């Protein structure tokens, strides 16, 4: 038996201009009661992921902020994947035996998670020296697991607290890896990939994006609005390109041949030029403000 009557369906919802409508979802039912976690506009930079930073002969491992407060939450499983990816992608540049200081920010970590981070660092021959955190629970967990811990009540130390306001970009992120479908790399600066960016992968950079390989995924350069940013690839065949607030997709007909190309914002949106043309144009038409 087909239980619904045949006649019920073909009535289009009334009063909607199908060519031009606005649709919004209802707000979360308990948003008001559930104070703080969702209603408050998260202020942390959405592009923060696991990040290495070298400082005075030591390596800082900065974790993204607690997922509750982020527009792009990084949960533990994502964090682990990101750390693995960064370790693998930066292998050649991470000097073995460099002491690592873990900046946990306001993330909650249990002792098992701290140990797991340590184990991953160990594989890359990086000793975990010290853990900084602003959460008491994390501090206790790490201390009981036998790590040297420093609990900080105030931010603004060791690269923390910088997400609140717009700040200078980070140094470029250099990755030697293949970015596969589902991988998202976010960075507050320029991203350089030595390898391919496959379809289904995405790179969101606040600076330029350089792909020394095939670009087939989605790339967003100048993600915080910098229209001067560029995307360069040896083989430019992206699913979609975004620079600042502009979006472009590949032509329906793929070109017969691929050359190294540069994408930039021209007077009428995103344009693409071969690398050699672009270099020339850059020299001849660059206007000094």
């Amino acid at each position, binding site marked *: 038996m*087909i239980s*619904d009557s045949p006649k019920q369906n073909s009535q*289009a919802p009334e009063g909607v201009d199908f060519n031009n409508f606005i*649709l919004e*979802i209802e707000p979360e039912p308990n948003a008001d009661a559930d104070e703080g976690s969702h209603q408050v506009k998260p202020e942390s930079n959405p592009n923060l992921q696991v990040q290495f930073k070298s400082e005075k002969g030591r390596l800082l491992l900065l974790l993204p902020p607690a997922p509750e407060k982020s527009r792009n939450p990084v949960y533990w499983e994502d964090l682990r994947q990101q750390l693995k990816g960064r370790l693998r992608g930066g292998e050649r540049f991470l000097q073995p035996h460099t002491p690592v200081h873990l900046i946990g920010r306001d993330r909650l970590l249990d002792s098992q998670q701290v140990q797991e981070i340590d184990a991953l660092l160990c594989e890359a021959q990086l000793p975990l020296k010290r853990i900084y955190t602003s959460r008491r629970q994390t501090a206790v967990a790490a201390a009981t697991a036998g790590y040297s811990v420093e609990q900080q009540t105030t931010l603004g130390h060791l690269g923390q607290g910088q997400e609140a306001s717009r700040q200078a970009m980070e140094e470029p992120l250099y990755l030697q890896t293949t970015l596969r479908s*589902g*991988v998202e790399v976010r960075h507050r600066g320029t991203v350089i990939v030595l390898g391919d960016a496959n379809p289904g992968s995405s790179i969101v950079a606040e600076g330029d994006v350089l792909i020394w390989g095939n670009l087939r995924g989605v790339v967003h350069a100048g993600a915080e609005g910098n229209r001067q940013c560029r995307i360069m690839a040896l083989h430019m065949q992206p699913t979609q390109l975004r620079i600042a607030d502009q979006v472009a997709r590949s032509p329906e007909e793929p070109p017969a041949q691929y050359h190294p190309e540069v994408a930039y914002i021209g007077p009428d949106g995103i344009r693409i030029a071969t690398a050699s043309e672009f270099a020339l144009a850059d020299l001849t038409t660059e206007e000094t403000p």
Partner: protein
Amino acid sequence: MSRIIVMTSGKGGVGKTTCTANLGMALAKAGQRVAVVDADFGLRNLDLLLGLENRIVYTALDVLAGECRLDQALVKDKRQPNLALLPAAQNRSKESIKPEQMKRLIKALTKVYNFILIDSPAGIEMGFRNSIAAAREAIIVTTPEISAVRDADRVIGLLEANDIKAVRLVINRLRPAMVAAEQMMSVKDVQGILSIPLLGVIPDDEQVIVSTNKGEPLVLEENLSQAGIAFINVSQRLQGEKVPLMDLSIKKESFLIRLKRLFGG
């Protein structure tokens, strides 16, 4: 009342997404306003089958995070403006969305669309539970194989437990010659086990692979293939029309017709 239909199977690779794309397109061609929702977070495919991958700007998660409105995330089909896709996020896991959030998305869609097809992921975990949360009807897609039928049976039980009563069956990738040679389960065999109303039978067709790779649903072709006709029939039955089941028994001329198609274009 809009119809909210989840396409599910339990087992993977039986053709849920292909069915969703083709049914959605067939319904849109028939003048229905259709939204297809990809509930396969982390392993989305529906956009590829519809050839809309490079038009995605926002996903369902962006809507939920308040980054954009729902209409901004909807990708309108270039060929068939009655059809829109609500894409899933590719970089997240199935756990990144809750059944309650799915309900809010679908509820808003019902204001504009009269058919909402939800493409469920394989399995019976979180992704499945999300995809059935808002559904009022279900289409079970299965192939005539014992493993697929076994999983379909389990899923039908789960749907009933979740108060989705209108459950109908699509048998995909049937090979009449093998059925005739008793090497494959017949439509009757499958129905005998699952005992739910049959919505249609889709014959195995190489064109499906071609259309998948091109990102053009079969039902858009000018010379409809057998599978394309079968999908159109399913869509008509779904709209309440009485369409007889296609005769899939082996006929001598079918070979000739194929030859003709081969030479005649």
